[in-house]
């Protein structure tokens, strides 16, 4: 028995927003008479942190402290359309909607403040909850006083709405896949290096380290970005070596039906993690952010598969890389199997191909 150490890398990209776009998000904001801010957004928080991120965006865009902002995504009577929390869109697309709504509110605050201060709104700015005359910061009025003046003096409600919609990009030629517009809101990039230990007697693969680099554009909240990267890493580890809804695939029998019979990662599987956050601001995202929530489980399986090859010299290309698959691959290699080589062709995995299993379709390099 020996433990073999292996390393592998992978680099990936992933689109933000629904593929082909056409997925609106909307928000509206109102200001209370003391200047406190109520945000109404339809974005569900599935643990990704949408409540936090959108609140941060609103606070900075208006220019008030974070704890002045109340975020309400609780119901469809109060909140407008958000297509939803999926497609890595909650920060990038829905965040843009609250950002636009906050910009409107800021403009309205400055207009009312301009009347109160008898200064043109263009010569005013807002910081930390105060409206200040540019270049003469002693002339100031709190946002609370502005909101009070709007409410009790001008008979006005300060509100703002915002909507974000990237237009739908239709497939204009289904034979080539050509589209009539940009089919994503943005694309994000990441890379991963995996280290594994493979036991050549039991076939067990233990992932010992994942080093991962993400271009997040701008980390609106670094702690939440880390949460996505780390949570995704463990899900990617599960995809790589543990999880399978159909352990005798393609059979649909003997499925795991509780936590005892389905192999999900536990804290005991936690490898050493190293997160590298790169901030290349995106042109269109709120504060330059990009969406990385989903891609965070995409790079690990290939990096792990490559590391397993590095460790013991076999390619396992069916996931998860279970002990059984590793042992079978080691046996096959010992029996002399490998890719078929014919001229310049190198053909791996022939036994898995549709050519070997189905009779209705073949797939070859030929025309």
């Amino acid at each position, binding site marked *: 028995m020996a433990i073999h150490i292996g390393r592998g890398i992978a680099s990936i990209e992933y689109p933000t927003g629904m593929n082909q776009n056409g997925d609106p998000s909307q928000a509206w904001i109102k200001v209370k008479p003391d200047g406190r801010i109520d945000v109404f957004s339809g974005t569900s928080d599935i643990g990704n942190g949408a409540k936090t991120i959108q609140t941060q965006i609103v606070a900075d865009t208006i220019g008030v402290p974070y704890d002045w902002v109340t975020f309400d995504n609780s119901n469809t009577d109060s909140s407008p359309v958000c297509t939803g929390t999926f497609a890595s869109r909650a920060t990038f697309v829905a965040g843009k909607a609250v950002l636009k709504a906050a910009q409107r509110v800021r403009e309205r605050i400055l207009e009312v403040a301009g009347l109160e201060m008898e200064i043109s709104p263009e010569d005013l700015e807002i910081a930390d909850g105060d409206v200040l005359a540019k270049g003469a910061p002693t002339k100031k009025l709190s946002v609370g006083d502005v909101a009070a003046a709007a409410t009790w003096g001008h008979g006005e409600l300060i509100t703002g709405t915002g909507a974000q919609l990237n237009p739908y990009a239709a497939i204009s030629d289904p034979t080539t896949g050509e589209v009539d517009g940009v089919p994503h809101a943005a694309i994000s990039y990441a890379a991963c290096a995996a280290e594994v230990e493979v036991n050549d007697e039991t076939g067990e693969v233990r992932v010992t380290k994942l080093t991962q680099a993400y271009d997040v554009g701008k*980390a609106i909240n*670094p*702690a939440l970005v880390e*949460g996505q990267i780390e949570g995704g890493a463990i899900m990617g580890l599960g995809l790589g070596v543990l999880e399978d809804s159909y352990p005798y695939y393609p059979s649909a029998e003997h499925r795991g039906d509780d936590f005892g019979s389905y192999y999900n990662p536990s804290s005991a599987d936690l490898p050493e993690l190293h997160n590298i956050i790169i901030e290349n601001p995106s042109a269109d995202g709120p504060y330059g952010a990009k969406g990385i929530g989903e891609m965070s489980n995409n790079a690990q399986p290939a990096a792990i598969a490559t590391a397993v090859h590095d460790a013991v010299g076999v390619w396992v290309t069916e996931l998860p890389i279970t002990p059984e698959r590793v042992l079978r691959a080691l046996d096959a290699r010992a029996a002399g199997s490998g890719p078929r080589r014919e001229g310049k062709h190198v053909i791996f995995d022939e036994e898995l191909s549709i050519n070997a299993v189905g009779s209705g379709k073949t797939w070859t390099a030929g025309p």
Partner: protein
Amino acid sequence: MNIVVNGTNRAVESPPLTPLLHVLREELDVLSPKAGCENGGCGACTVLLDGAPRRSCLTAVGSIGGAAVTTVEGLGTPEDMSAVQRAFVHYCAAQCGFCTPGMILAATAYLERGGSTEVAAISEALAGHVCRCTGYLKIVDAVAAARDGDFDLSTTAESPHTTVLG
């Protein structure tokens, strides 16, 4: 029958074989223990019985005798959280939050038993608690730091696992 939940004596009408989880949630409206599986597999229903972690979904209410039941509601309030609760907030150790009450109770018991703050030991101790969101790292870090107890809750902990490149 009467049971003591978070320091309060509560009358229970459910039959003795009713799972404690059901009694807490459906009869007594103590809602922090979560029904993640009702089968002993996830740990989301964990409560402390006289300080020891127990899966309330597998614990018959009639079996607990006079043991004091503690849930996270009883560990601390939003204004006055326990050290482990504060650590979870400061380390951003909850994402969706559904596993969090069980994790916090298990971690509390672990630390009170004198558990080590080594990462491997904490990971092993919490291995029966499923979290699908966090990847466990921030949970482990929170537990390792919790004994210190004194966290600035206006911010979150810098991560030693992260490098930021400009």
